[in-house]
């Protein structure tokens, strides 16, 4: 049984402009201890999907459509009582966010914000919680943890705050950690440190990691498997190696092509043309076709399913190119 099993998740938002289908039929699985990367541009529904798992979608305007399922450890999270969900949050599933500067409460000391979780989920007394909190700060690499414990967020740098967020998230030894672009808002030099910290802690505690990022470089370094999202849907899944070396979906290819490699400073980067369309009106047919250089009539006529790339394997892609009917068609110039 997978640790996390998301099936046909649909999270819609009611806006003035219409219904925004931010997450529109996402299915994915995550085994215990595994690292899964979720990749895609901004506006592809990655964050909304992560928030849906923890039940943090504000409603209204958000709503998880009936028929969706999120099973954690065999338990259906969309049906549990709110009290049970709160027991899971911060305890069995933790989350860290993109903006460390705004994700901590400015008027409470960081120690207090760590202590809060320890006292809530582990039932520690104030003194025990402080000791455990200071130890956590030390574990995430904060120097002088005893003094830092009583500091306020505005007295710390973004990198330190993200370490504190990690400490809070790890305080109850969760089985699953969701990290939503944990390094995007940080300086480049800090990014690597935070990523290393995350990975080492993950290995130490044996937890599963759901890493949301738009950076394929990060994925290459950290992840076992990758889910590529576009337009609120999964467009390609596979192991990191397969995805990076043989991307099947033109979107994944585009993401890879726009990545600067070391040494090829003379090579021009190839960004994907255009931008992610609005979640209120995804294009008919394939949602990527407006930006796809391979699109043909069939892409406009109907939306491809998530098709297995090789029968029986775990690889799949949502593209007519991998459909058996189309395999005979010669697509000259297709990069592999």
């Amino acid at each position, binding site marked *: 049984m997978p640790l996390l099993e998301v099936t046909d998740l649909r999270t819609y938002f009611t806006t003035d402009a219409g219904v925004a289908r931010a997450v529109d039929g996402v299915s994915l699985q995550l085994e215990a201890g595994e690292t899964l990367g979720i990749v895609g541009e901004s506006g592809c529904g990655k964050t909304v999907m992560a928030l849906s798992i923890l039940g943090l979608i504000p409603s209204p305007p958000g709503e998880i459509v009936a028929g969706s399922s999120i099973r954690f450890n065999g338990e259906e999270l969309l049906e549990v009582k709110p009290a049970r969900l709160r027991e899971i949050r911060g*305890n069995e599933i933790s989350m860290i966010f993109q903006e460390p500067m705004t994700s901590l409460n400015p*008027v*409470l000391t960081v120690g207090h914000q760590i202590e809060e979780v320890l006292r*809530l989920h582990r039932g520690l007394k104030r003194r025990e919680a402080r000791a455990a909190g200071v130890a956590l700060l030390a574990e995430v690499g904060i120097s002088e943890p005893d003094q830092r414990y009583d500091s306020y967020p505005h007295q710390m740098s973004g990198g330190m705050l993200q370490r504190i967020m990690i400490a*809070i998230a790890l305080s109850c030894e969760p089985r699953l950690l969701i990290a939503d672009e944990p390094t995007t808002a940080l300086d480049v030099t800090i990014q690597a440190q935070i990523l290393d910290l995350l990975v080492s802690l993950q290995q130490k505690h044996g937890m599963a990691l759901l890493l949301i990022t738009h950076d394929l470089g990060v994925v290459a370094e950290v992840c076992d498997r990758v889910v590529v999202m576009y337009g609120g849907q999964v467009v390609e899944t596979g192991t990191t190696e397969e995805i990076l070396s043989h991307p099947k979906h033109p979107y994944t290819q585009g993401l890879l092509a726009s990545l600067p490699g070391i040494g090829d400073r003379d090579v021009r980067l190839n960004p994907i043309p255009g931008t992610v369309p609005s979640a209120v009106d995804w294009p008919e047919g394939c949602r990527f076709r407006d930006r796809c250089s391979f699109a043909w009539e069939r892409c406009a006529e109907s939306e491809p399913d998530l098709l297995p790339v090789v029968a029986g394997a775990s690889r799949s892609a949502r593209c007519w190119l991998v459909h058996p009917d189309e395999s005979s068609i010669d697509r000259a110039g297709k990069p592999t």
Partner: protein
Amino acid sequence: MVRRLLGAIPLVLGIATIIFFVVNLAPGDPALRFLNPNMTPEVLEQIRVNMGLDQPVHIRYVRWIGALARGDLGFSFTSNRPVLDIIKELLPNTLVLSATAIGVAFLLGILLGIVQAVRQYSLLDSVASIVGLFFYSMPSFWLALMMVLVFGLFAYQGQWFIQFPPSGMQSVDYAFLSPMAKVQDRLMHLALPATSLALVLAAGIARYTRSSMLEVIRQDFVRTARAKGLSEPVVIFKHALRNALIPVITLLGLYLPFLFSGTVFIESVFAWPGMGKLVVDSILERDYPVIMGGTLIFAMMVVVGNLVADVLYAVVDPRIRYD
């Protein structure tokens, strides 16, 4: 903090100057109220000298400010008592009334604002917004009269379960009551005036808290608090509220002048022996020292209130520190 206190001194001095010149440059002769047909011009002149009105304005100003620095507010023209004594007697009454009112107003307003923000767009939110707008737009003296009419007079006429005394600070037989009954009597007398003052303020505070709270609950750290598994009351009251209160505290400073204006009406409607009533009466009597003293005390209370707001600001928001 000390710097702030020192900064308030020129402010008070400036206020005192404005008060002095507004009062003293007004036409009319306060000595004339002692005039009677048997009086010779010499006697009238003597009265003027006694009142210090024979001196030119700038001399009187210097004298007044000088006395002020020594804590001397002069003698009342009418009751011949030191102004300070009169104020000492009446100020506590006003403070009890306004402190109760502002306490009730902030408690009620903040609670209502939170509920409205948390249940945004609900029926309760819309109804509270509309009702709040009406109270916000209401002259406090009219609200006070309506309270007297309904809870004092109609309640008495109809022998309702609950009735409130329509005026005064205590009953006629106050001196003969037991200590418990005394407290109850004072509270009953306080109820209507304090509520009339508080409701108008609370409406404004609720509006402000609502919008401030709405802004805060959209922020990242509130999401973090929820992601930690904290219960909704903890998220709202511990994490969101303290942040939402930061702008609401400025209202304390802003509302004080408004509150003291309100006491002028409320004390007059409820015959509450306080500073507001004193100032109105002394204006009608042209009792210059009392007008100046009373107004100055009001203005100083506003200045002090603003300092208190500054301190509270620093208490609630760790990002602000006064050295």
